[in-house]
């Protein structure tokens, strides 16, 4: 039994994108256990529901997180629309789906850059983020914002998209796909990256299911669970299959996210082709009264929204359960028995979004 040292990992650390504190108990460069502490970025956003009325709160809901921002605002709008029984026009659902899939592409490409930086491969990080700029320019052209768009509202979307913009989205997707092929080829085939990710942080299928993993972490261990198959928004009309891998290590999670990116590019092209004509919003009158519970698929996994309203213009309760919160327990399991050099790779492979987790 070697001597144990405790290394503090975080909250400020060059490798981590967001503040989380892990006390790593080491025995000569092998991690024996990890003790987490969270709470560094809690802002009390769920309490703000009592102060901002239900139409203003959509701007707070989209600021829960910067990377998954659109899907949070989509979830809020879908839950309030379900409580009030509002039917959104079809063009609005297709636009929302298109922006959700573009957000997913943006999130996965950002993650690819971060994980390349985590194993010391700086040039791959810079090239991945150079590709991400094209998606951000698309967002700015259609909605006005690069990261936080304020595009969703209760009753539809706030801005319509012209025919030229749709054609530009489609042609950008085609050129983006070609450039992405070169970068993902490096992720999947390079020998030094394989030596860092193969066999590292293994999560077996039974353990992933028991500990409640969600998202690509779950799908990389062989469980085919993807909430887009339930058909919310316009997903019921699109051609779509969940992507699974069976190894359960960091390499499998990278492969799942890369294949999901290519699948999302295909879904965006399908949305542009199938975009129906019509209005993009309906007027909303009255106040919500009732409860609703919906589940969406964020880039990081399954997110739950529970809303309770009592007839006034302020909602009574709005609860969000984010996917990173569910993935923290499998993370601690994966960290047992790994080398110190694997810790950043494993922490980044669950794609932690701590500002979602702590709102």
């Amino acid at each position, binding site marked *: 039994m070697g001597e144990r040292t405790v290394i503090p990992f975080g909250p400020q650390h060059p490798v981590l994108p967001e503040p989380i504190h892990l006390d790593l108990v080491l025995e000569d460069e092998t991690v024996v256990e990890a003790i987490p502490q969270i709470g560094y970025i809690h802002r009390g956003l769920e309490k703000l529901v009592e102060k901002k009325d239900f139409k203003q709160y959509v701007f707070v809901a989209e600021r829960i997180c910067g990377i998954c921002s659109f899907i949070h605002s989509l979830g809020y709008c879908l839950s309030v629309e379900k409580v009030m029984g509002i039917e959104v026009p079809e063009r609005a659902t297709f636009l929302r789906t298109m922006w959700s899939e573009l957000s997913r592409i943006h999130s996965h490409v950002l993650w690819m850059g971060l994980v390349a930086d985590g194993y010391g491969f700086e*040039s791959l990080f810079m090239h991945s983020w150079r590709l991400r700029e094209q998606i951000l320019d698309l967002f*700015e052209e259609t909605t006005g*914002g690069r990261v936080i768009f304020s595009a969703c509202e209760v009753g539809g979307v706030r801005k319509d998209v012209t025919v030229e913009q749709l054609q530009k989205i489609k042609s950008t997707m085609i050129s983006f796909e070609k450039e992405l092929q070169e970068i993902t080829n490096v992720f999947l085939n390079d020998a*030094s990256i394989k030596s860092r990710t193969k066999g590292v942080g293994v999560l077996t299928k039974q353990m992933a299911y028991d500990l409640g993993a969600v998202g690509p972490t779950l799908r990389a261990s062989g469980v085919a669970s993807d909430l887009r198959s339930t058909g919310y928004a316009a997903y019921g009309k699109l051609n779509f299959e969940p992507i699974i891998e069976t190894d359960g290590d960091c390499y499998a999670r990278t492969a799942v996210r890369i294949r999901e990116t290519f699948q999302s590019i295909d879904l965006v092209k399908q949305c542009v082709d199938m975009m129906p004509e019509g209005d993009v919003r309906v007027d909303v009158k009255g106040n919500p009264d009732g409860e609703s519970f919906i589940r969406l698929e964020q880039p990081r996994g399954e997110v739950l929204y529970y809303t309770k309203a009592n007839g006034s213009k302020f909602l009574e309760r709005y609860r969000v359960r984010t996917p990173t919160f569910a993935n923290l327990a499998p993370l601690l399991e994966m960290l047992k028995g790994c080398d110190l050099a694997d810790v950043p790779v494993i922490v980044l492979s669950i794609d932690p979004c701590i500002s979602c987790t702590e709102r």
Partner: protein
Amino acid sequence: MSILSMTKTLMKSVFHGPYTLLYPIKKKEVFEHTKGSIEIEVADCIHCGLCQRNCPTGAIQVDRNSANWSIDRLDCIQCYYCVESCPKKCLKMGNQYSAPAVKKVRDEFTNARVSGN
């Protein structure tokens, strides 16, 4: 198993030159719908206060008595909810960002026609 698989991309970027923009010497071009800052046609404003009530952050202050409309530039989150709520449609989302500042900046607009001078 391959090594040196990034070589093609790296060599292409060396000969292409930098993909980055020499900001602030060269400014980035903005799009038509870029959310920059709120502009007002103050002659059309009737000072009803709907924009002040709907603003999520409380950045807008409207004073009916002195015909004053002011906005705190650093509090504004560019959500343009005020643009949608204005009954006279005198508010607009311009596409130039307000400049960074070291203190809070409050831009005031007074309606000369009504204020009595």
